[in-house]
């Protein structure tokens, strides 16, 4: 009690009756209130008249407005809610939703959120017991915490026949960690690589596509000398840096065999080859535009789309954005160059995400219908054509030459995205350490060596096979 009194300066024993406490913080304020009080009591009538008039006006306005608002289209028939982190795909989904409505009479309301805030919003909504009926979910460790908490409907190939035709590696992306059921329909494979503008390369005198790291660097130099931006990427969008590393890094650390070794705990992230893969990203920073630290995702992609930058390193999903900005853009794709002549090139790929159904949905049958629509050939083909998805269904034809070259490269050189596929099942994830870590490397506040140490420490703190290893 004494402590309480001290904290608030309350003198409980002093005067009984009207306000006797003198709390330290409030006293000054209280003083001010009494100062203005007398004046307040004699408050000018004008203001209170105005207040009254305004109140009447407000009531009148709401009397008109509220019924008008309520007259807006109500959810008479079943309306499924569908959330995504892709505002840029809104037009596409709304078009597909219209097709679905025509077929089934069920309408779908598409609500996109800012990608960086989506996780927190979705987790909050699902935990709250609400959330959408159908939603786009991240893959691997990006969804397992949610699926293990029982938020998603487990999917069987009886409900969703399309699951049968998918490769086990693809399905792994939407499987839980504790509960290994499949909780989402994997919709696309993502592929990382180097996108280039053949026209700009020609203008800069780059005759052959760079095959090795050294020739890649010299190509960047030639583009720069010719007065174009060599690389459109910036460092402002942190996830973009992890993807950039995912595209150029595997050839340095040794791709899938290193993946298997760190998963098994045989090698660690402080391995010199892994450090070399981080160094490669640092080397590329020299070829980024001026003010790279402030380049947000869309501005950076805009530099490539508007033919200002010759290269952009990222995923296949950038292409649809490039095309919305500049439909006539000529874009080519190649895997990250090999570390040295003769070294193997790798193409990082993973299940990008899935479509899941809320376990608490009150429209289970309709939601399943919609999910099967999303799994249908027509939808997959449309998504492949318009969003540049590499469909999880093999029979979908790609038309974009860049996408075709990606699909061809996967069988021989595919490798899982190390940080995303392997190490997002616990916190802190390797991505959570790597993304800001790269930004610190960019600003000179960190080095590839110390970043590797941080990643190892982060993983060792929760991943058993790496515990105690440095």
């Amino acid at each position, binding site marked *: 009690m004494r402590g309480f009194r001290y904290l608030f300066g309350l003198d*409980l024993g002093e005067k009984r009756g009207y306000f006797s406490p003198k709390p330290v913080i409030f006293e000054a304020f209280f003083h001010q209130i009494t100062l203005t009080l007398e004046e307040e009591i004699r408050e000018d009538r004008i*203001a209170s008249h105005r207040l009254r008039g305004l109140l009447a006006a407000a009531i009148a306005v709401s009397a008109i407005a509220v019924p008008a608002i309520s007259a*807006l289209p109500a959810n008479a028939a079943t309306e499924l809610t569908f959330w995504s982190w892709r505002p840029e795909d809104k037009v596409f989904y709304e078009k597909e939703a219209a097709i679905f409505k025509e077929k089934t009479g069920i309408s779908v309301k598409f609500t996109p959120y800012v990608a960086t805030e989506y996780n927190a919003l979705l987790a909050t*909504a699902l935990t709250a017991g*609400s959330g959408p009926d159908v939603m786009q979910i991240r893959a691997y460790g990006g969804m397992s915490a949610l699926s293990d908490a029982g938020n998603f409907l487990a999917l069987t190939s009886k409900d969703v026949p399309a699951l049968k035709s998918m490769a086990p590696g693809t399905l792994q992306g939407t499987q839980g960690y504790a509960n290994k059921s499949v909780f989402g329909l994997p919709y696309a494979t993502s592929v990382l690589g180097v996108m280039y503008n053949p026209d700009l390369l020609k203008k800069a005198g780059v005759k052959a596509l760079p095959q090795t790291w050294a020739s890649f660097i010299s190509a960047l130099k030639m583009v720069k000398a010719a007065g174009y931006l060599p690389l459109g990427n910036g460092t402002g969008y942190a996830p973009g840096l992890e993807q950039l590393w995912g595209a150029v890094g595997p050839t340095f650390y040794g791709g899938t065999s290193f993946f298997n070794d760190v998963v098994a705990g045989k090698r660690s992230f402080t391995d010199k080859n892994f450090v070399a893969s981080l160094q490669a990203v640092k080397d590329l920073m020299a070829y980024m535009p001026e003010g790279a630290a402030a380049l947000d995702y*869309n501005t950076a992609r805009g530099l490539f789309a508007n033919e200002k930058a010759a290269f952009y390193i990222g995923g296949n999903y950038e292409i649809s954005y490039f095309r919305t900005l500049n439909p006539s853009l000529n874009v080519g794709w190649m895997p990250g160059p090999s570390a040295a002549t003769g070294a193997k090139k790798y193409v990082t790929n993973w299940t990008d995400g899935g479509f899941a159904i809320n376990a608490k949905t009150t429209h289970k049958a309709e939601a399943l219908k919609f999910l099967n629509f999303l799994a249908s050939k027509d939808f997959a083909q449309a998504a492949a054509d318009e969003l540049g998805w590499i469909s999880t269904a093999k029979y979908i034809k790609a038309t974009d030459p860049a996408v075709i070259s990606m699909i061809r490269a996967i069988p021989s050189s595919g490798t899982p995205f190390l940080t995303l596929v392997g190490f997002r099942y616990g916190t802190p994830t390797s991505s959570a350490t790597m993304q800001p870590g790269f930004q610190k490397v960019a600003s000179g506040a960190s080095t590839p060596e110390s970043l590797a140490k941080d990643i190892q420490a982060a993983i060792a703190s929760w991943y058993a096979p790496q515990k105690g290893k440095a």
Partner: protein
Amino acid sequence: MKFFMTKNIFRSILIINVLTVLLPIFFLFNSALRETNDFARNPLVLARHPYWQNFTDVWADGSFAIYLKNSIIVTGGSLLLILIFSIGAGFVLGRYTFKGQNLIIGFILTGMLIPAKLAILPLFIQLKWMHLLNSHIGLILVYTAGALPAAIFIMSGFFRALPLDLDNAARIDGASEGQLLRKVLVPLVKPGLAIIAIYSAIPIWNDFFLPLVFLQDPSKKTIMQGLTAFFGEYQSQWGALFAGLTMAALPLIVLYLLLSEQFIKGLTAGAVKG
């Protein structure tokens, strides 16, 4: 001579302040009336031919009307509870003496120190347990609890300032305590009610954090929360973005122009909580 010089210095300081305050807001309104591509070419041109379609486009999207309605419900509901509870408690604490009074005053003062933001996790889980998540009622109760301590504190000050003779005269005339409060005292503390109304309603109207955590259903979102979603959705469609901002800002601007004195008094009365 010197006298006029100092006056002019202060006047110019204030004029500079007026420009810093009003120019950004003018830019916002002006840009809301310009076509996106036109704006992208040069952001600093007067909208000579107002492009009203920005507003009709945003309104046609439909969600703004819903957000607006939700904000009115949440702010109005909270305000009603805050006024009713603070009149009652303020009256009792300001005009009665009773056992345990100081303890209750101490408790209310402690309540003023607790920021709802830091208790957001337990509140989230508690509201879930009470089935009040994703509901306007839950949000209204949380807002009420947040604003109430200061409102009671302010109200009791107003009640205390009224002369005691009023009570005695009313009682001699045979008024019950309820009648005394309703018929005699409440009309006299109206200025206090205006202060509390503004003090509590404005921050509630402006808040986006609690709705962000507590409301997930897009049809239940409030205007400021909706605005954050709106910005994600319309990305670089400048015309629509500025029109949306203008529409969200307008209600309070109009109110402020009409009732600026009340606003200033009301919001600074919140000096205790900030």
